[in-house]
């Protein structure tokens, strides 16, 4: 299957035209390239989860269990008992339509069922039709309909066309959060045994091997070794890795993201963390078992999310650290910030985080004992503890993408901007309506960064890419910086399609490239071997040529 050219992809989108038929009459049509493959049964069995055997979503007849209706009804009622949010959000929507054109999937498909309000109606209509007397009586007039197998297909299609980015909830006058609804609806699909491979395989890996991509401990170390050799080759600075891996008694446990030690360009961000640790001679270590800060479990069920992250606290206990530092990632920080404390608290075996370099006590994390590495670094810079030469990033014109969940579930806006402005000289913002709390998702979050749904991803990422294109053309932006590992994994594909010529990286890659080390050698390249604008003069005599790697 080939993806249409960028100029042709959106020709079918008209945001002001709606279908002739009522949405309830439109049967779900699963379009190729817009949905993910169904999970392998053994993946589910390994985790003790129900599954429907070997099948695919394009099968005409889905192998639903015989009592599927009963399961769905029971699970809906149960979720309403468990979550006030769900019950309330089902009741109070007035269909004002403020959310309609806020969703990146609606803006790039024009499919009315991608308007957050209709996405929620997919389940709201069933609740009315199944449980409400008025709903049963008034039927479609009150927005009620019957539960059929087509509804399940529709749920599968559209609740896996939501990246749980929460943009709509910013604009909703009642704060209705589609992410919450999507989380719950995916849970209900899970109860039927319906799950996607791309969201479940990483869970299986993370559960048994420690991280989503299934990197075993020896490869974890090898990957980092490769990075530090490369760093040594470029700067002449040797980093001893041993203390950073599974060392007991360190002060801090750092939890990285597998995306950052697995593939380009995330690896440069990973290198950035380690370079920073080395620069500070920080008493920090990582666990090869808790080697995943991200949480694909969250994209399947809250229970699965909890099962995956228990190991972070178990490892903190085993390694006898005082507090935990987390890498740059998106949904990860929603989970860490909004769920960890409730799941694993009270966390009384750790201490209130205190920066050993600046003495700053992170009061805002006093209960949970977890600090975002961008907060940590911002504090270092504010106290003048880093010798930085921002001109080393002069070859870059940087823009910053507010990753969706750190923005709308954490509110981390100033810290990354503070850091970026201290490590580079050319920083421009994207248009005002598309940054900070109004930021757009990359289009591939929440377990949707697969290959088979590439069209969905390129469409969903279009609003973001469109603003990158704007600053690329207007200001010559050639580097997008973000604080999410999924961003770093999917933006290269997205931008290559929509805006070729813009590289992607994390904040700490820029930090590391701007750090001035004592005893460093001359170099003419940055940490990913792009030519520098101003060659760095090191302890050796500055050379005109610079050495090649």
């Amino acid at each position: 299957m080939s993806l249409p050219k960028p100029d042709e992809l959106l020709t079918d989108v008209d945001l002001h035209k709606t279908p002739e038929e009522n949405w309830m009459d439109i049967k779900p049509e699963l379009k190729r390239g817009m949905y993910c493959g169904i999970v392998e049964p053994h993946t589910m069995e390994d985790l003790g989860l129900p599954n429907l055997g070997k099948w695919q979503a394009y099968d005409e007849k889905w192998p639903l269990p015989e009592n599927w209706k009963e399961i769905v009804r029971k699970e809906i009622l149960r979720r309403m008992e468990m979550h006030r949010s769900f019950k309330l959000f089902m009741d109070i929507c007035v269909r004002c339509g403020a959310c309609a054109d806020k969703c990146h999937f609606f803006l790039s498909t024009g499919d009315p069922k991608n308007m957050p309000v209709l996405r929620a109606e997919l389940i709201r209509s069933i609740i009315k039709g199944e449980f409400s007397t008025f709903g049963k009586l008034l039927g479609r007039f009150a927005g009620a309909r019957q539960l059929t197998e087509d509804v399940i297909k529709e749920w599968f299609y559209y609740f896996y066309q939501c990246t749980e980015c929460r943009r709509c909830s910013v604009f909703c006058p009642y704060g209705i959060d589609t992410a919450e609804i999507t989380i719950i609806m995916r849970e209900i699909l899970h109860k039927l045994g319906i799950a996607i491979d791309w969201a479940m395989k990483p869970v299986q890996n993370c559960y048994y091997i420690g991280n989503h991509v299934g990197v075993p401990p020896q490869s974890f170390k090898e990957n980092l070794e490769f990075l530090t050799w490369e760093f040594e080759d470029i700067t002449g600075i040797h980093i001893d890795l041993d203390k950073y891996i599974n060392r007991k008694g360190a002060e801090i446990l750092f939890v990285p993201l597998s995306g950052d030690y697995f593939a380009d360009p995330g690896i440069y961000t990973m290198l950035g963390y380690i370079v920073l640790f080395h620069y500070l001679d920080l008493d920090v270590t990582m666990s090869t078992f808790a080697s995943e800060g991200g949480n694909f479990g969250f994209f399947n069920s809250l229970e699965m999310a909890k099962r995956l992250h228990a190991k972070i606290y178990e490892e903190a206990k085993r390694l006898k650290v005082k507090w935990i530092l987390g890498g740059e990632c998106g949904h990860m920080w929603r989970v860490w910030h909004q769920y960890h404390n409730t799941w694993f608290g009270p966390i009384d075996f750790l201490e209130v985080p205190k920066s050993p370099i600046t003495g700053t006590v992170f009061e805002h994390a006093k209960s949970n004992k977890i600090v975002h590495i961008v907060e940590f670094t911002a504090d270092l810079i504010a106290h003048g503890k880093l010798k930085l030469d921002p001109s080393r990033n002069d070859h870059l014109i940087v823009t910053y993408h507010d990753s969706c969940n750190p923005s709308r579930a954490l509110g981390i806006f100033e810290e990354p901007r503070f850091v970026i402005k201290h490590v580079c000289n050319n920083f421009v913002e994207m248009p005002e309506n598309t940054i900070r709390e109004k930021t757009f998702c990359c289009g591939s979050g929440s377990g949707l960064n697969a290959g088979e749904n590439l069209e969905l991803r390129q469409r969903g990422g279009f609003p973001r890419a469109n603003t990158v294109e704007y600053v690329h053309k207007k200001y010559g932006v050639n580097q997008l910086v973000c604080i999410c590992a999924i961003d770093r994994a999917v933006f290269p594909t997205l931008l290559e399609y929509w805006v070729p010529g813009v590289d992607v990286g994390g904040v700490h890659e820029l930090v590391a490239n701007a750090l001035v080390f004592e005893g460093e050698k001359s170099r003419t390249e940055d940490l990913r071997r792009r030519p520098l604008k101003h060659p760095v003069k090191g302890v050796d005599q500055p050379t005109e040529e610079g050495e090649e790697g």
Partner: protein
Amino acid sequence: MNALISFIIFGILVGIPWFGVGVLGLDSLFGIVIPYVCFLVFVIGLIYRIVCWAKSPVPYKIPTTCGQQKSLPWIKRSLRDRLESPFTTWEVVLRMFFEIVFFRSLFRNLRADLQGKRLIYGSAKWLWLGAILFHWSFFIILLRHIRLFTNPVPEIIQGLDYLDSFIQSLGVPPIYITDILILAGLTFLLLRRFIDSKVSYLSYGSDFFPLFLILGIVITGILMRYSLKVDLYAVKQLTLGLATLNPTIPEGAKIGSIFYIHLFLVSSLAAYFPFSKLVHMVGVFFSPTRNMANNNRAVRHVNPWEYPVKHYTYYEYQERFKDKMIEAGIPIDEEVQPEEEHEWYSLYMIGSKLPPKIKS
């Protein structure tokens, strides 16, 4: 189609009291019994809804943050940040205040347009304006009506009445500003459901119905005041009787069907209210993405149904990778012991115990 059915239902609702009072002369049914019953349905229904929401716990603290978090002391948080990403209870209260009184989130509204291959965003405050006009006018009109249920009328209500009616028309009585504004607001909200293709597509009959109903109430109210005059003295006798639980239909005086239509529509709205989307008025107070503080890492939130889950242990992991770890020079933990079986539950795992029943 949806709108048409709504309008027909609305028409029937207008016809019932017109026929019932005008033809059958059932004054006390429409003047006393129905208003009381509907008012009771309103109160009990609303309490039922509130209890129903309150019974479900809030398992997680999930505010939507629209401003800078409170983190490092030197990071400045503007007043806006504090309202949009509240850390303290006071900030939450203020956030809710702005949300409920000024429709803060709706004020943010944007419109997006796809022009060729470019998405353009513009401000779109019309919905906010229409909503504000309607809700505020409705609220003030409701307050003004207190004069019908009190004797003597509290001064504050008299003052409100005076302020609202300072536009003096040539004839008597003076025109209420809120009468004009609520008509403008409602007309906008209704037209929007017809004209905006997206909103029109997602509107149900039950979205048009309350608009027709309220519009009907407003128009009958206005008619009563400015053209089809009713015997105000008799009306007040009736309403005061209702309020003091001593209801009587005033003898002799003919109040006029228009009043009964107005009253019946109000009664219908009251009875319809708790069972429709109109409960957003109360529901908005419960919204967990707005009424919770963004202080998760500083203050722990407790979930009443949290249950222990099954997870993989480091011991099992180390057993599996021991040789590879030794080979790679990664330290082995000699002290680690297999974990004792701990109790765990699951909503998903086959053959597992279900978590204990939710306490509410």
